[in-house]
């Protein structure tokens, strides 16, 4: 019996010993840590071999054409190279990728979301500046894939945060559906009219994943922060003591307390419950996306293209002028462990070719990063968005690190439930932002 009692002690001692040896073993652990299935073969030499692409899109029906076009373009340059597209489930994507990065092997070409997700993993990627120089003018949205002045992926789509509204509801409330409110006060009274006429709350908000605050921040930011504050925020000089920055968060809480939001935002998922509610006529407005899901491509068939409007943020701080917040949405990068960087970079260029992006834009309903691709059949809302793109600015939340975004998600939920004050939330956000 004593022997059995000893086992836990032996285990603990073993664990402690392992800790002492951490320095010596550290280089070894990086390559031996459990990566398991992550390491699919990646052998490419010269003009032959195989390139493995990881993404969460290629198995979608709407991406079939895009993949076919990109493959065709690549085959023209490298007919002997086999391409393997591995579609991973999105909710596991960065977990699987993390394992591959720890193992130092895996896919050659990797799809990323712009902003924190790629910047946090830039160490595992190859700077692409020399390869994509010819595409720099044709494509937009590079900033979201750039870290310390180096480009790590070529943008495929642009992603941004227009405010969509239900024109039929505006009409019913006696508001001009073609002239949405331009100031926050007008918005609040419009909300009252909308509620009276349609018996629905003003905004469909889903903050279960903590995305609601991100969409709010980027959708409203340009009308709350002054131009100077906005630019320095994007440049990384964020003043968390500024009254305007504080206003971003106090108004988030205020709007909810005033009953402008759909009830229970903390337990409503943005994807897709919040959008489903807007599309189902249970709210008059929603902070949406402009590519893929949660935008015009999805709303048009349900509400009717002519009933979906898109607007910029109504002015909160006098003297600000609202602009569309957008960045590069998704883009393909090259892993630094790939055997032949030039070959992999060529594939990235094929994936971002005009032909491929035209197919993706029309099938998946995305605003392509390629400036020469026109949006076909997107209705009035897509037209409004297209018109706002030239005057647009990078989105505020994309500039934050993944860590800060996570803290912001938590703080935003606590703000809504009243378990933290705005000042306390600002303090924690400032700390997270400065640490990251």
């Amino acid at each position, binding site marked *: 019996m004593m022997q059995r009692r000893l086992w836990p002690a032996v285990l603990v001692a073993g664990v402690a010993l392992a800790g002492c040896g*951490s320095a010596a073993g550290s280089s070894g652990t990086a390559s031996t840590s459990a990566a398991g299935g992550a390491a699919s073969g990646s052998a490419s030499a010269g003009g032959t071999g195989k390139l493995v692409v990881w993404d969460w899109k290629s198995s979608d029906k709407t991406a079939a054409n895009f993949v076919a076009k990109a493959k065709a373009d690549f085959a023209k340059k490298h007919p002997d190279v086999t391409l393997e597209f591995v579609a991973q489930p999105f909710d596991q994507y960065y977990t699987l990728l993390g394992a591959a*990065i720890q193992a130092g092997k895996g896919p050659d070409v990797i799809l990323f979301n712009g902003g924190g997700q790629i910047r946090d993993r830039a*160490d595992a990627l190859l700077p692409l500046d020399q390869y994509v120089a010819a595409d720099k003018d044709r494509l937009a949205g590079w900033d979201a894939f750039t870290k310390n002045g180096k480009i790590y992926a070529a943008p495929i789509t642009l992603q941004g945060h227009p405010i969509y509204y239900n024109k039929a509801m505006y009409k019913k409330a006696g508001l001009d559906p073609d002239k949405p409110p331009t100031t926050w006060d007008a918005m609040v009274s419009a909300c009252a009219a909308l509620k009276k006429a349609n018996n629905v709350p003003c905004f469909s908000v889903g903050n279960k994943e903590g995305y609601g605050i991100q969409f709010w921040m980027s959708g409203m930011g340009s009308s709350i922060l002054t131009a100077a504050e906005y630019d320095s925020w994007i440049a990384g000089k964020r003043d968390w003591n500024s009254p305007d920055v504080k206003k971003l968060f106090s108004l988030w809480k205020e709007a909810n307390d005033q009953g402008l939001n759909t009830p*229970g935002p*903390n*337990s409503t998922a943005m994807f897709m419950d919040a959008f489903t509610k807007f599309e189902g006529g249970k709210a008059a407005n929603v902070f949406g996306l402009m590519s893929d899901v949660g935008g015009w491509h999805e709303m048009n068939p349900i509400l009717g293209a002519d009933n979906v409007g898109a607007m910029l943020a109504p002015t909160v701080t006098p003297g600000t002028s609202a602009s569309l917040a957008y960045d590069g949405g998704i883009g393909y990068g090259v892993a630094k462990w790939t055997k032949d960087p030039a070959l992999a970079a060529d594939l990235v260029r094929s994936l971002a070719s005009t032909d491929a992006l035209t197919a993706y834009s029309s099938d998946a309903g995305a605003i392509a990063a390629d400036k020469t691709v026109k949006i076909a059949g997107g209705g009035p809302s897509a037209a409004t968005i297209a018109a706002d793109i030239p005057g647009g600015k990078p989105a505020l939340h994309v500039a934050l690190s993944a860590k800060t975004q996570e803290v912001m998600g938590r*703080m935003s939920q606590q703000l809504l439930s009243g378990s933290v004050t705005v000042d306390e939330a600002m303090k924690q956000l400032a700390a997270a932002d400065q640490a990251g």
Partner: protein
Amino acid sequence: MLAKVRPAHAGRPFGAAGDGGTAGVPVARSLRERFTGRNAERLAPYVLIAPAVVVILLLRLWPLLLGVNFSFTGDGARNGQPVGLANYTELWNDPVFRTALRNVGLLILLLPVAVAVPGLLATFIFLKVPGHRFYRSVYFFPAVLSPVIVGAIFNLLLAFDGPLNAVLGAVGIDPVDWLGEPSIAIFSVVGVQIWATFGMGLVVFLSGFSTLDATLLDAARVDGASLRQVIWHVIIPGLSRTIQFVFVTTMIGLLTSMFGLLFIMTSGGPGGSTYLPEFYIWIQQGQMNRPALASAASTVLFLVMLLVGTAQIGLLRRAGRED
């Protein structure tokens, strides 16, 4: 301490070969031909358990040690460099991880409820309340559903504009944001977990009941004992081993298999109030790209489980010794 008749001792080293057990004979004999007599006999059992030991050492303990080792290195720019206890200090200072540990404590506190639910229901079935056959089959049904499906069902039921709040509204109670209110959400999720898993405990309880001495129950009834007295003085003492077993298995279930429900129902929110250590590990490794910090959290979770597990083994052993 009288009960020293423990089969595990009897089956120690020389058991396999020395007893002339059917399986041991050919191996022992072939070894005996090569080496001489006693030595081979002593070696045989080790050879026999070697595959299992190798698997455990190679696939369990070695990765465990690698993980612990890894938790003392840095993330990101400091990848692979020794950082001492930095990850552990960070964990300690992270309010989310502290909430996760506090929630583990809460789960242990809620354990009696999780055991009482199947226990009471099994008692009613055992006492043959009207419709007990129907309930017996229905109660087990949720246990075969995957947590993802259970979570999705309850997401709909517990939604702010969902059926539960509609029912409450009909009787004049204000709607409650079951999954969106930090002080309530963890109880909602634990409640659903209990609902989803009590079927297993119920089956164990029912099998325990079948070993109860019926004459004792009859005697109690004849003596005029009330239902409460029957439960308290006859059923519970008679079922003490079953209750302990359900305690241990339910605790394991609560501490290790709530990830699916959390992931679907709250994603750790609102405001981080429903985090558990597994979920924290997953977020740090997957979403935050902090594998070393995640390893440190795993190590802490391992130590917690080791503590809980040792306590459980002690409990089970005491239960086994009682008769």
